[in-house]
């Protein structure tokens, strides 16, 4: 599949190109914007916000909590050994383990969710140009669904002068 993209020097130029593409009828979901740093101020960054990582972290914490309760209570009851005159299932000390495993659950879930949600590690060829590491902002669309290259080039030109390239994905 061929894709066409423009490399812009400034985020406001990229924003204009983005707006131009939307006006040309390209759905927002098809427009890829790639940058070397996040630009929250601009409309092209306003999509893809999600609370999913926070919710998953909470779920991971709950799973960690449950596992910790099972581990401590379960093993203490499986072979009851009296130590220090304390009860067999000593819930004060068990709270320490439960806290740590809850946090570990939240932390590990967060990282795994990040990787899955960002589709990392990625081995396929994504729409990218190493010029992004020189500070350029890439705005591009795949040429699918009968989209004409000319209309896309015109839309990208709204952003101002920029390098426009095509690539196979």
């Amino acid at each position: 599949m061929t894709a066409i993209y423009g490399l812009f020097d400034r985020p406001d130029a990229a924003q204009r190109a983005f707006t131009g593409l939307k006006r040309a009828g390209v759905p927002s979901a098809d427009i890829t914007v790639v940058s070397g740093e996040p630009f929250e101020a601009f409309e092209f960054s306003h999509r893809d916000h999600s609370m999913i990582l926070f919710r998953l972290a909470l779920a991971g914490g709950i799973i960690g909590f449950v596992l910790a309760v099972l581990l401590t209570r379960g093993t203490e009851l499986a072979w009851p050994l009296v130590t220090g005159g304390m009860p067999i299932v000593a819930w004060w000390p068990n709270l320490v383990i439960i806290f740590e495993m809850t946090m570990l659950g939240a932390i590990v879930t967060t990282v795994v969710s990040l990787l899955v949600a960002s589709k990392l590690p990625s081995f396929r060829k994504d729409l990218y140009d190493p010029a992004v590491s020189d500070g350029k902002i890439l705005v591009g669309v795949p040429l699918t669904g009968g989209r004409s290259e000319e209309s896309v080039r015109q839309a990208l030109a709204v952003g101002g002068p920029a390098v426009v390239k095509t690539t196979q994905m």
Partner: protein
Amino acid sequence: MSHRWGMVVDLDTCTGCEACVVACHAENNIATAGPDEAARGRAMHWLRVERYWEGEYPEAKLKFRPVLCQQCDAAPCESVCPTYASHHTDEGLNAQVYNRCIGTRYCANACPYNVRFFNFFNPTWDKPLNLQFNPDVSVREVGVMEKCTFCVQRIKAAEITADAEKRELKDGELKPACAQSCPATAIVFGDLNDPESKVSQLYGSGRGEKLLEEVGAQPKIVYLKRQATA
């Protein structure tokens, strides 16, 4: 009948002869550290006789106190051991399971009585002491903690014999090495669950008090001594 092992030590009768210390070494396969290591503080006396001077010459008095593992009911050493090498048995003893010990030495630090000892090296015995091992007691390797067990090997042997003979244990039938060897019979050992046993009768004596009772470890050993009169 279930047992609860206890001990009473009479400080007024104790002469400080340290026969108990030697007997303990012999019974429990405890090596001597040698002069260099002892100078470094590595001597291992599961039972030690503490010697204190009171007063000044010419009224100086010498006091002896045998200190051994108090088999505490709320033993601080038990809760801190990460591998359950130190735990409480249902006969009231603090068990030291050598095989589980990985040598963190936390139990020794938590013990208020300093009655726990660590094998800094693999123990060695000068000839001919290497021929004198007690086969009922394991030899501990380097890195493992050890302490007085109330001669648990003798307790177990006596219980097994009594069980096989389908009878109860008699008071005085079973003595740890220290009680057996004390010439002044200052150390009395027995079953606290048996109200007729000598140790139970001495336990409630008006001369009795426990060592460091205020620390809250609930030690089992009662020390008898002349209390100060008003």
